[in-house]
């Protein structure tokens, strides 16, 4: 009897894990649509190519060595078999390959964040070269120090210091934003974004219905992102935890959206849709580090704080001439940090000092290594398209085809 219940639990948890992984996989579609909507039409094909290619690269590199670096085991997943990890101390409560599948889609999410920030000016192949290193090495290293539980270069263990990041405000989102920031700093702004007098010029996105669809897809995928991070659902306790996480994830997104919309209305006099969309994502990022402990009201307020912060962050980055076409650094980086710092308010297992040390560790590692890798790629093959290619659109120079060949007026 006991064995039968265990089998049922194993099957249910594995099934839940896989469905959540599929939901997170769908976030790749969300990022693709969001980014395709917020760039100009002449750069659409290229941003879509980057998004599909980075997803596939993440899947391959995490299989080759990323998972092994993060959680142990051998490269190429050779120690993962159908019925468990060879040599594991305890019997798993779900299929090990389901764990790999759930983890690999998170890597792709982190990498998707980079593509939006460097959009409209970065060379396709230089970006993909970076994606190989990011998903195969940079992300798995910081993942091993956090979710993997390994000490940071043998010096300190983040978990012991009170660092807690439930589904990855810091580990996934801020990490992606740190790499994005390094890329943007080396790339420079898009031509025409900033005037010589320091003024900020608008470069409107081509397709706001697409950006809105992308945001809703991300919002939906986030239920897998946060909900799956409970790692189990086959008991009353874990089922309750999953339900709370779903509820709070949704509440935070709603709070962030309204807060950003109202903030934009108060600052600009108009309800800016792109800011509003960024607000929903900011709410989601803000709750990701701790969706299991706040009340629904607290989650809504946490999301709202993220929604307000993201608007000011986007405006501040523009003042600093850090050109981020989709607001990825603000949404995932600045609000990712906020998410980490909000956890100790409702969760006694974490501490502010632990969260700050964890954030500094993740940011320092990812930003530093990304700067080096982008720097090497820049020296070897260059990372930015020529001024003429940028003017004509990277669709033609990188992919040789337009996204809307029948009604693009040149």
């Amino acid at each position: 009897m006991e064995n039968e219940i265990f089998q049922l639990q194993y099957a249910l948890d594995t099934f839940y894990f896989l469905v959540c992984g599929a939901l997170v996989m769908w976030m790749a579609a969300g990022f693709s649509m969001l980014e395709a909507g917020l760039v100009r039409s002449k750069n659409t094909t290229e941003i879509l190519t980057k998004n599909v290619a980075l997803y596939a690269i993440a899947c391959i590199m995490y299989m080759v060595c990323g998972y092994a670096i993060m959680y142990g085991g051998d490269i190429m997943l050779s120690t993962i078999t159908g019925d468990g990890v060879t040599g594991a101390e305890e019997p798993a409560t779900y299929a090990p390959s389901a764990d790999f599948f759930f983890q690999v889609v998170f890597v792709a999410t982190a990498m998707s964040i980079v593509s939006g920030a460097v959009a409209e000016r970065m060379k396709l192949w230089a970006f993909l070269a970076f994606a190989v290193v990011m998903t195969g090495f940079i992300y798995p290293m910081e993942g091993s120090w956090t979710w993997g539980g390994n000490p940071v270069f043998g010096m300190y263990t983040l978990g012991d210091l009170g660092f807690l990041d439930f589904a990855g405000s810091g580990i996934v989102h801020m990490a992606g934003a740190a790499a994005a920031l390094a890329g943007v700093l080396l790339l420079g702004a898009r031509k025409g974004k900033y005037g010589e007098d320091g003024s900020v010029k608008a470069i409107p996105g081509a397709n706001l219905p697409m950006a809105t669809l992308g945001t809703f897809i991300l919002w939906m995928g986030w239920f897998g992102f946060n909900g799956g991070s409970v790692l189990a659902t086959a008991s009353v306790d874990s089922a309750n935890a999953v339900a709370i996480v779903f509820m709070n994830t949704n509440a935070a997104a709603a709070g962030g959206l309204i807060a950003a919309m109202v903030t934009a209305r108060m600052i600009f006099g108009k309800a800016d849709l792109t800011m509003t969309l960024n607000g929903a994502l900011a709410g989601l990022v803000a709750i990701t580090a701790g969706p299991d402990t706040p009340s629904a009201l607290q989650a809504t307020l946490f999301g709202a704080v993220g929604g307000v912060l993201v608007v000011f962050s986007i405006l501040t980055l523009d003042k600093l001439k850090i050109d981020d076409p989709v607001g990825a650094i603000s949404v995932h980086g600045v609000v990712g940090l906020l998410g980490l710092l909000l956890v100790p308010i409702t969760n006694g297992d974490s501490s502010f000092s632990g969260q700050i040390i964890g954030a500094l560790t993740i940011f320092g590692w990812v930003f530093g290594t990304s700067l080096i890798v982008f720097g090497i790629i820049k020296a070897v093959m260059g990372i930015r398209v020529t001024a003429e290619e940028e003017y004509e659109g990277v669709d033609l120079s990188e992919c040789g085809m337009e996204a809307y060949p029948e009604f693009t007026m040149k």
Partner: protein
Amino acid sequence: MKLITAIVKPFKLDDVREALSEIGVQGITVTEVKGFGRQKGHTELYRGAEYVVDFLPKVKIEVAVGAALVEQTIEAITKAANTGKIGDGKVFVSPLEQVIRIRTGETGEEAI
């Protein structure tokens, strides 16, 4: 014969077409165009940054008419397209040397 070219606000196109049909105009050519006049462009806002839209969308209507219909046509267009606000557009009248109907080879007012 005259070629009457009118630049009007896009949302007035239907009114103008009806007014022209009523006075017996047989055909018109319509083009979506962009440009500026005294109305200039206008500013829009995107993520907190203002940008100027220099050229506003308008509709260009071209009508070829015989001498008898010229005044009526101008009146119909100006009446139908008038909102009293800036940006209503203009009507240009220019002489038309020759008109040929391709199918039959008719020329002059016969061909209009």
